[in-house]
């Protein structure tokens, strides 16, 4: 395959940044998107140019490190992580635009790499439990209804990649925050902090300059882990409950 890439190049946080066009020939349809970027970088290195900086780690779709906006969609045309997207999803001769996640809360460090520390700070604000759990307990020691366990697990699959923020027209981090609130709120170990968790996490979310949620649903549509949109309603229910109790 021969493709044209329009890649966002930005030297640092304060650089303006711009799209630069590169041509790549002989791209294999079996390459992952990141492997294709590797090929580009090898070419750029040989030409004594600065390689394109992009985040990646496991390349198995489970760590959440990679993520770029491809042709206007977070993680590109398939609902998966960028590392699990393959070039067969594109056509020979395509022009592909690659941009970083764009949000004030995710400042660009270089090229396609953004600082997602804002997510860590939201977790620090309440995305944890304080109950000492020790070693894994007997499976039947703590009865949990199957639907609750399933719901918690679905929400727990969030890998914090930030695609929800990237896709959101408001650049809101609500799906991420809601996934954590739902995950911990469905389980008995999450109950002691349940009321304060949602208030603290939302406050941190707002402080990080994420936008507000207007229930448009682009976040859940691009989420590589399929975090359901209704977690946001769960978050709202928990928040209403907390405010009614006078927490926060």
């Amino acid at each position: 395959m021969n493709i044209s890439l329009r890649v966002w190049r930005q030297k640092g946080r304060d650089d303006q940044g711009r799209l630069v066009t590169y041509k790549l020939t002989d791209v294999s349809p079996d390459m992952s998107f990141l492997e294709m970027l590797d090929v580009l970088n090898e070419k750029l290195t040989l030409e004594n140019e600065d390689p394109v900086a992009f985040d990646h780690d496991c390349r198995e779709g489970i760590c959440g490190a990679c993520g770029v906006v491809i042709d206007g969609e977070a993680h590109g045309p398939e609902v998966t992580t960028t590392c699990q997207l393959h070039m067969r999803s594109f056509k020979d001769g395509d022009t592909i635009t690659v941009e970083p996640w764009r949000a004030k809360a995710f400042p660009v460090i270089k090229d396609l790499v953004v600082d997602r520390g804002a997510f860590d700070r939201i977790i620090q604000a309440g995305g944890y439990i304080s109950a000492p759990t020790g070693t894994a307990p007997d499976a039947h020691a703590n009865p949990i209804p199957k639907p609750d366990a399933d719901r918690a697990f679905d929400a727990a699959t969030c890998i914090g990649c930030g695609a929800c923020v990237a896709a959101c027209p408001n650049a809101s981090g609500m799906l991420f925050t809601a996934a954590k609130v739902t995950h911990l709120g469905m389980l008995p170990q999450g109950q002691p902090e349940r009321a304060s968790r949602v208030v603290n996490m939302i406050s941190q979310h707002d402080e990080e300059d994420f936008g507000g949620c207007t229930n448009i649903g682009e976040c859940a549509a691009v989420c590589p882990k399929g975090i359901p949109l209704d977690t946001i309603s769960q978050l709202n229910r928990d928040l209403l409950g907390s405010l009614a109790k006078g927490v926060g």
Partner: protein
Amino acid sequence: MAVTGTILVLYLIAHMYGNLKVFSGQAAFDGYAHGLRELGYPILPESGFLWIARIVLLASVLIHIYAVVILWRRAGRARQNRYQVKKRVQRTYASYTMRYGGVLIALFVVFHILHLTVNVIAPGGASDSPYERLVNGFQPEFWYITLFYVAAVIAVGFHLRHGIWSAMATLGANKESRQGKINAVAVAISLIVTIGFLLPPLAVTFGLVSK
């Protein structure tokens, strides 16, 4: 946003019901309008109910606008550098129209009150009879007023399509299993309200309702 929106949707349904009385003739329409003034009398003073409703509605509108100003500004601050290429994934057309459509609706409401409530703007002649104000106002020669009305009502329809869904989600009612139903209700109410509000003025324009 969700709570005030819900109040306004309920009001719209009541308002639409009143409008449709136009098809029962002048006596029914004017009688209904007069009845609103007497509602609750003598427990409330005359027009008391009407003023309570107006105050609640005005408060709802102002809080609704205040909330959107905050959300809009936050969204602007949260993404200062726009995407060079942005694709719609699944969002409804209605969700695009919320903010600018809302501005159009707000401007229309001001005009609408001056036109048919206060009757300061009175194309075709002012009148004490609400029925006559309606019939005068939407005569074919004032097609541009009818056009503005139609555009605003369609904007309301789109606004409700996303607004009802969004309000349900904000109030915590959205569950995976209920999403189909919530969307169906949102579409149904939007369609009913849009058609219900379009019928009376268009009936006047096309001569089905006259003095």
